C-alpha cells in the first residue's frame, strides 16, 4: 500500500468526524485515552453464497506480521471500486486504518472461488463474506488474547492491529497473538458484527486510493503487465464466425516483417509471435493478406433482423403466470405494443489482453476475466490439461460491463504459450477484433398487452419476450471461449437457453392481478452474452414505456399512476424522491421530462429516474439535457462509489439508447470501430444528479446494473412529452422521431 500524503489524510480524517484509530495507537503509548469501542450486535441472517465454498476466516483474510490485513477476494477490479468497498468492511469490523487493509484479487489456488464478477453481486457476496470473516476474526483474536493476557474479554480493546487490556494497559499485536498461525475458525451464525449506527467507514464516501495511482500512470492493468523476455502475439481472426482456413502462405513473412519468432497454425487458428508488439501487428496484417478462408454462412439482412428472430425462435415457454390473463381481450381499455432493441457492444476502452507462460509443467495465465475459476475449466477442456496444472491470476482491466472478450484473449495466450514454452506470451486484441468478436448483448423483441379495469387500474398484463442467451460465460464447455471453436477438432458451444436473464423484469413490480410472461428463445446470428443488466434493459424499456401510455389512456399523471400500483414503501420513496428532485424544472415548449421506475430483478435495488430532453420538431434531433435518479440499494457501503456507478450507468445507458446498434450486412459485422459504432462523446453528455436513500438496516445490494434498464424508457417518455412522438425501436434516433 502507498502512504497517502498528509494533506489528503487530514482532510479525510476530518471528513469522517471520528477520532482516528491510527492516532489513538500513538495515544496508547503516551497515556492518551483509549477509543470508545462500538457495540457489537449478533447477525443471525443468511451467510452469503460465496461462503458456501469457503467458510473459514483464513479463506477470506490473513493477518500479516506487520499487523496489516490481507483480504482475499474472488472478484476482480474492473473500475467498480470493489477493492475500496472490501477495505471498508474489513477495516470497520477490525477497527483499523483503511490503509492497513490490502486486497488481494482473484487468483486460483489462493482466493475463494466466487464464480464471476458480475450481476451486481460483488457487494452481496464478496464484501459481505469479508464482513463476517473479519467479525469472526475479531472474536477469535479477543479470545486468544484473553488467555494470553489473562484478562476477561470484556476488559479487552481491539483496535489498530492490537489487543489491549483496559486493566493494566498491556497489549499484544495480532502477530503476537497468532504466532504465525492464521485463523482457521469457521464462520458460523450468529456473527457479532459492529452496530451499523457506529460505522466510521461503511456508508461514507470513502475516496478510492487507486485513483492516485491511475493519474500517475502507476495503476497496473492487464495491458501493462510485463515480464522479462516477454514476447508479443496476434491471432488472425477469420473473415466470419463459420469461416475455415483453406490455405496460408507465410513464405515471405520474415522478409517483410522483422522480429518474427513463430507462426502458429492449428486447425483454423492462425497466430504469429514476435519480439516487439508493433511487429506482431504488422505480421498479423501480412498473414491476413496471405490466408484464404471459406465463405462464412451469410447473416440475414439487417433490416429483417426482428422478422428473422421470430422465424427461428422456439417456444414459447411460460415463465411467469398469475391469475388469468384470458380476460385481457374483454377489457374495456387495452393497449398493445411491440418494443425492439438491437445487438449492443460492450465496447470496453481497453481491448482484451491475455498473458500466459507454460513452464513445462504448469500453465500460468494472467487475465482480466470476470471468472478465473470457471475460465480455468474451459481452458482445461480446450487444452486437455488438468485444471490443477493451470494457475490463473486476475489482473485489473478496463471496465467491460459484462462478459466481453477477456477470456478469449486469455485462451489465445494459453494456446500459444504451449506452442512457445518457457516464455511469457502476450496477446493483445485489436480494436477491430474487440468490436467484431465481442459476445454482444442480444437483440430482443418484447410485445406487451395490458388492460385497464373500470377504475383505470391495470387488471391484466401479458408479455412475450424474444431473446438469445444472456450468458455464454466460460465453464467446462470449451466452446464458450472463441479459440476452442477453431481448433482442428473444434468445440461448438452447447446451447444455454434463457438462464433467467432474458425475461428479467418482464413481470412488472406493480400490483397487477393477472399476469403472464412467455419467453421465446432464439439462437444467432451473432455471438451473445452478458451485457450490464441483461434482458432488464429491454424489458424495462417496454414496461415503463407502456406504463406511460397506460397512464395517458387512464387520463392520469404517469407517476401517480405508477404509485397507485405500488405497495412497497421503498418503491414509493424513490418515486417521491425523484419527483422532488425534478419539481422545480422549467420546461420549454420543445422540452419534456419523462420518468421510469424499476426494482432490479424485482428483489434487489430500487430506482426511479427522470430524463429531460429537447427535441427539434423539424430535424428530429434530440438533446439530452439532464438525468436524475433516486436509488435505494439498502445498506450503502461506499456512498461515492454508488453515486459514481449510477452517474456512469445513466450515461452509458443513454449512449445505448440514443446511438448504439451492432450493424451488419449479409457477409460481415460492419460496426468495427468507434466511428462505425459511435458512443456518446463529451458534447452530448447530459448533466446528472443522484440521490441515494441509505437504509443501513436492509441488506446491501449491488448497484452496477441498476441505472441501465429505466434509462431508455425515461428518455422515450421525455421525448413523447416534448413532441408527441413515441419511439418503440432502439436506438431512438432523429429519423425514427420524424417517422413516428
Amino acid at each position, binding site marked *: 500500500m502507498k502512504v497517502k500524503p498528509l494533506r489528503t489524510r487530514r482532510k479525510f480524517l476530518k471528513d469522517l468526524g471520528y477520532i482516528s484509530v491510527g492516532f489513538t495507537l500513538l495515544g496508547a503509548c503516551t497515556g492518551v485515552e483509549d477509543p470508545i469501542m462500538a457495540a457489537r450486535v449478533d447477525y443471525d441472517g443468511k451467510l452469503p453464497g460465496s461462503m458456501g465454498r469457503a467458510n473459514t476466516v483464513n479463506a477470506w483474510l490473513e493477518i500479516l506480521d506487520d499487523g496489516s490485513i490481507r483480504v482475499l477476494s474472488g472478484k476482480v477490479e474492473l473500475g467498480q471500486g470493489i477493492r475500496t468497498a472490501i477495505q471498508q468492511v474489513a477495516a470497520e469490523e477490525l477497527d483499523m486504518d483503511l490503509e492497513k487493509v490490502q486486497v488481494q484479487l482473484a487468483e486460483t489456488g489462493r482466493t475463494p472461488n466466487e464464480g464471476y464478477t458480475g450481476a451486481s453481486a460483488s457487494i452481496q457476496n464478496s464484501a459481505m463474506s469479508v464482513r463476517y470473516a473479519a467479525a469472526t476474526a475479531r472474536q477469535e483474536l479477543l479470545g486468544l488474547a484473553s488467555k494470553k493476557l489473562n484478562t476477561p474479554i470484556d476488559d479487552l480493546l481491539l483496535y489498530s492491529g492490537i489487543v489491549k487490556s483496559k486493566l493494566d494497559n498491556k497489549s499484544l499485536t495480532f502477530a503476537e497473538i497468532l504466532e504465525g498461525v492464521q485463523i482457521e475458525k469457521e464462520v458460523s451464525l450468529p456473527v457479532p458484527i459492529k452496530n451499523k449506527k457506529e460505522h466510521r467507514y461503511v456508508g461514507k464516501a470513502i475516496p478510492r486510493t487507486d485513483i492516485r495511482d491511475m493519474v500517475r500512470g*502507476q495503476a497496473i492493468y492487464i495491458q501493462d503487465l510485463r515480464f522479462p523476455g516477454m514476447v508479443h502475439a496476434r491471432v488472425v481472426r477469420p473473415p466470419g464466425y463459420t469461416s475455415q482456413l483453406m490455405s496460408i502462405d507465410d513464405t515471405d513473412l520474415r522478409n517483410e516483417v522483422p522480429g518474427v519468432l513463430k507462426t502458429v497454425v492449428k486447425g483454423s487458428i492462425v497466430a504469429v509471435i514476435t519480439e*516487439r508488439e508493433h511487429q506482431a501487428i504488422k505480421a498479423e496484417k501480412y498473414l491476413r493478406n496471405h490466408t484464404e478462408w471459406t465463405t462464412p454462412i451469410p447473416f440475414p439482412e439487417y433490416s429483417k433482423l426482428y422478422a428473422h428472430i421470430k422465424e427461428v425462435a422456439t417456444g414459447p415457454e411460460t415463465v411467469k403466470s398469475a391469475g388469468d390473463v384470458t380476460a385481457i381481450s374483454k377489457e374495456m381499455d387495452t393497449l398493445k405494443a411491440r418494443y425492439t432493441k438491437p445487438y449492443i457492444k460492450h465496447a470496453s476502452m481497453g481491448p482484451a489482453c491475455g498473458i500466459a507462460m507454460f513452464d513445462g509443467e504448469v500453465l500460468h495465465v494472467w487475465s482480466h476475466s470476470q471468472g478465473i475459476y470457471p475460465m480455468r475449466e474451459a481452458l482445461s477442456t480446450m487444452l486437455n490439461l488438468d485444471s490443477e496444472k493451470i494457475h490463473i491470476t486476475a489482473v485489473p482491466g478496463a*471496465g467491460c*460491463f459484462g462478459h466481453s472478450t477477456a477470456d478469449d484473449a486469455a485462451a489465445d495466450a494459453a494456446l500459444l504459450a504451449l506452442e512457445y514454452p518457457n516464455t511469457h506470451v502476450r496477446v493483445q486484441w485489436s480494436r477491430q477484433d474487440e468490436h467484431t468478436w465481442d459476445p454482444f448483448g442480444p437483440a430482443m423483441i418484447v410485445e406487451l398487452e395490458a388492460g385497464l379495469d373500470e377504475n383505470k387500474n391495470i387488471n391484466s398484463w401479458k408479455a412475450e419476450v424474444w431473446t438469445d442467451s444472456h450468458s455464454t460465460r466460460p465453464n467446462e464447455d470449451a466452446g464458450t471461449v472463441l479459440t476452442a471453436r477453431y481448433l482442428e477438432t473444434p468445440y461448438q458451444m452447447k446451447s444455454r437457453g434463457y438462464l433467467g436473464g432474458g425475461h428479467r423484469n418482464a413481470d412488472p413490480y406493480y400490483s397487477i392481478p393477472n399476469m403472464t410472461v412467455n419467453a421465446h428463445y432464439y439462437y444467432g446470428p451473432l455471438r451473445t452474452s452478458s451485457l450490464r443488466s441483461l434482458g432488464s434493459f429491454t424489458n424495462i424499456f417496454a414496461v415503463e414505456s407502456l406504463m406511460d401510455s397506460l397512464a395517458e389512456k387512464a387520463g392520469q399523471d404517469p407517476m401517480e399512476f405508477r404509485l397507485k400500483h405500488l405497495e412497497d414503501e421503498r418503491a414509493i420513496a424513490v418515486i417521491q424522491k425523484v419527483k422532488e428532485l425534478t419539481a422545480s424544472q422549467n420546461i420549454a415548449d420543445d422540452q419534456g421530462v419523462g420518468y421510469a421506475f424499476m426494482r432490479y430483478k424485482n428483489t434487489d435495488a430500487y430506482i426511479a429516474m427522470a430524463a429531460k430532453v429537447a427535441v427539434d420538431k423539424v430535424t428530429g434531433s434530440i438533446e439530452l439535457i439532464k438525468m436524475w435518479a433516486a436509488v435505494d440499494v439498502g445498506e450503502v457501503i461506499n456512498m461515492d462509489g454508488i453515486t459514481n456507478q449510477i452517474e456512469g450507468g445513466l450515461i452509458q445507458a443513454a449512449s445505448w439508447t440514443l446511438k448504439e446498434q451492432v450493424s451488419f450486412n449479409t457477409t460481415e459485422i460492419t460496426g468495427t470501430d*468507434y*466511428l462505425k459504432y459511435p458512443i*456518446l462523446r*463529451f458534447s452530448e*453528455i447530459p448533466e446528472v444528479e443522484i440521490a441515494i436513500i441509505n437504509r443501513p438496516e436492509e441488506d446491501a445490494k449491488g448497484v452496477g446494473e441498476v441505472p441501465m434498464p429505466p434509462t431508455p424508457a425515461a428518455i422515450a417518455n421525455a421525448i413523447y412529452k416534448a413532441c408527441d412522438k413515441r419511439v418503440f425501436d432502439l436506438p431512438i434516433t432523429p429519423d425514427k422521431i420524424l417517422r413516428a
Partner: protein
Amino acid sequence: MPTYHLNINGSKSKIDTEADTPLLYILRDYLELNGPKFGCGLSQCGSCAVLVNGKPTNSCMLPVSTIGDAEITTLEGLESTEGRLHAVQQAFVNEQAAQCGYCLNGMIMSAVGLLNTNANPDEKEIRNALQGNLCRCGTHPRIIQAIKTAAKNL
C-alpha cells in the same frame, strides 16, 4: 534498423526501431511507460494521448520517424521533480473522476493541453477540448468538474 534520439519527459532516449513504429509502441514497449494506453490504434478514442511540444496528440498512429526533436511529455512527465502532482492530476484525485481509469491518460493530457492555451476555459470549451476522448464508464461529468477545479488551482 534506424536509430532515433527522442526527447521524452525531459531526457533523451535512444531507440533502435523500424521507421513505421508508432510513438505509442516506443513509449509502452521500449520505454515501459504505462501512462499512454492502447485503446483503438485508429486515433479515435484519445487513450494514447501525449503532449507533443505541449499540444495533446494521439500517439497510436504517429510514426517515430516523424517526431524528430519534438518534446514529448507523457502522463509520467507531468509530476514535478519533487513528486508533486500536476494541478490536473490532483483535481482528478480530488473529484474522484474515474471508474476503471483506462481513458484517464487521454483525459488528463487533453486537459493539460487545454489549460496550456486557455487558463480559464468555460464548460463548452472543456467539452470541445475533450471531444476526441472517449470514456465508456460515463465519468464525463466528474472529468468536466475536475478540469474546472484544476483551472482554479493552477
